């Protein structure tokens, strides 16, 4: 049915009046049944919208069940004493076990990692957005390598850490510094090697997040700075980087959250089953929160008895990674909103 011609215009119609008139008209037309639209078509559409919506709901429900289960079972065990006390040799004793050394170990390896990964990741992102041609071969290959690095299995990073950092770099350092001493100092698993392995693994995370924030900065800002006589490098250092800070922060936080939960890369490069003392040197081994989850769930002599501390440890790990993730999401959302207003 063809739409009727609009009602005659009033002689002096304001914009507001015109809008009201058109709104009324559209509302009227919607009320008219569209006879040529078959009813099955509408049903189809509703059915599939419902189906895909259900799939979305199912994923969220799974997420909720996992989180709910862990929070419900873990909260009673997560006492102040549990968080702030160390563990004796018997880490499976429900009343004595604590996770402070593991939390400190994880924090130390993650902080060490950010020292390596953030400068390299940010500089790479600066090259990709500020210097490189988006179509040149270099850019294409670098981007391909970054995507590839993101997809390498975590256990392969572990093998790489063992083969490259410990055997090759560590072995060479031992040969250089103390050739007479048979006992290796650097050529064995250590917190430094674990952090470096994780830095290689999380490099793509930092690059991608920083690049996104650099692209969000309006080109007008750069042009204004260049027009005032600043060199390219000065523009990047004084104008671009301060603007990109939230993005760099997001990248750092995401890489930390990713690295904190990884076990496979540190299995052979530094994590220890048990250590009496905290690591004090770069070449010390360390106890780790996520590796501890693995130990508690697979090595426990009596899984029913140790269930409370296992759940509490998992909850502590999850709170750490999730808190970081949520902060990153919030910063990113704020950044995107600001970008929309700036452009």
């Amino acid at each position: 049915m063809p739409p009727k011609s609009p009602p005659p215009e009033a002689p002096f119609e304001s914009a507001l009046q015109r809008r009201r008139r058109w709104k009324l008209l559209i509302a009227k037309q919607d009320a008219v049944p569209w006879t040529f639209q078959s009813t099955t078509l509408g049903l189809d559409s509703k059915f599939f919208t419902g189906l895909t919506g259900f799939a979305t709901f199912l994923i969220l429900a799974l997420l909720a069940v996992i989180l709910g289960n862990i929070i419900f079972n873990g909260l009673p065990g997560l006492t102040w004493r549990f968080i702030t006390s160390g563990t004796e040799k018997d880490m499976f004793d429900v009343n004595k076990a604590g996770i402070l050394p593991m939390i400190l170990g994880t924090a130390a390896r993650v902080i060490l990692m950010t020292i390596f990964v953030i400068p390299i990741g940010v500089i790479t992102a600066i090259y990709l957005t500020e210097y490189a041609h988006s179509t040149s071969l270099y850019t294409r290959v670098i981007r391909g390598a970054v995507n590839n690095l993101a997809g390498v299995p975590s256990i392969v990073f572990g093998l790489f850490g063992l083969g490259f950092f410990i055997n090759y770099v560590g072995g060479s350092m031992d040969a250089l510094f103390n050739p007479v001493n048979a006992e290796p100092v650097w050529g064995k698993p250590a917190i430094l090697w674990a952090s470096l392995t994780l830095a290689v693994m999380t490099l793509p995370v930092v690059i991608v997040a920083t690049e996104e924030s650099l692209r969000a900065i309006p080109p007008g800002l750069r042009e204004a700075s260049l027009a005032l006589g600043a060199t390219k490098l000065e523009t990047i250092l004084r104008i671009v980087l301060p603007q990109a800070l939230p993005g760099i922060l997001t990248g750092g936080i995401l890489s930390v959250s990713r690295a904190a939960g990884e076990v496979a890369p540190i299995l052979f490069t530094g994590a220890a089953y048990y250590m009496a003392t905290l690591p004090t040197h770069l070449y010390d081994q360390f106890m780790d929160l996520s590796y501890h989850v693995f130990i508690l769930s697979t090595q426990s002599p009596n899984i029913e008895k140790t269930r409370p501390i296992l759940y509490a440890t998992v909850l502590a790990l999850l709170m750490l990674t999730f808190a970081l993730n949520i902060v990153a999401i919030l910063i990113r959302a704020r950044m995107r909103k600001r970008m929309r207003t700036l452009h």
Partner: protein
Amino acid sequence: MAKQDKRSVGWMGLKRGHRARPLEWIVEKFIFMVSLSAIVMVFLIFLFVAREALPVALGQTNSSLVKKTIAPDQMEKLSRTELMEYLELTPKQFAQMDKETLKDLMLVKVEAAAEAPNDKDAPLNTTTWSMLFKPHQWTGYDQPEYIWQPISQIHKYNLVPLIIGSLKTTLIALLFAVPLALAAAIYVSQLADPKTKEWLKPAIELLAGIPSVVLGFFALLVMASVMQAVFGYQSRLNAFVAGIALALAVIPVVFSIAEDALTSVPRSFTQAALALGSSKWQAAWKIVLPAAIPGVFAAVVLGFGRAIGETMVVLMASGNASIVSGSLFDSTRSMTATIAAELAETVFGGHHYRILFLIGALLFIVTFLSNMVADIVIHRLKAKLEGKA
């Protein structure tokens, strides 16, 4: 490269009327060098994983328990290099040893040979390519079989059970994750209203924030028991449980890439379809999805790479028995889990150690290829859609 590709103006920034800025020039070169780090890292990963695996790949390792021995009093007749090779010493170790130690080592060799099991499998070198991939008739078995038993008296290094284990869990994971994640991607990118979309997307991506060791823990403690109660199969930990838990790790990967591809289809496509009288679903299914199908393919390929490379979930939930069987409810052992579980116990530089690195190199090659395919496909799709828009 075209001429305008040069980033800095002339040598040290000096060209027709420019002031020389050597510092800036050096910093720019430095930035370029650092940006190559990602390429260097990918290259190093392959180089150093493959380096440890190379002796196996080239057939230089020998795991046979019975070897030709030389009596210790024959030592004088051997040349230095022959002796070194016979005793399996590195030149450095060899240089540190005196004659007596060498003689003792030779004696140990002879004694070990005398103690070797009197088995017709004992003289076999189990690290050759054919032993790694073809079935072998072991003593005590009725027919040729694929067996992975690296710790047993005769080291059996057949990789087929591990490859089948990996493929089984990966397949189950993809069967569950791909339909769910794709449906969710279509819903979030095309059908949901913008306000819901704003929180749906980060909520689903939160799933990626769960560490894999936590997923493994959940599968081990909760899912395994629940699913055994529901399906009533025999072994509590099996390929099916591991596959479902793995699906939870794969969903966010497939979802975010497919959603990205669907969103990058220009709005004008949908608007044109809607203007012609199609419903929202028809526009999504018949117009947007076909346009974005390479991106969906890439999402599935990357999901495959994630699933086959995932370690902790499979290590904790699959039961880790290296059986070749067609049943999805049997316990399995994947390639990744084997590396994680066994590397710590191997002798450094021994054949078991090298074979685990060989598995790692195979994993790297598989994921490298799948990543590259996905990368090329997505790049082409983006170029095509942006050209059209």
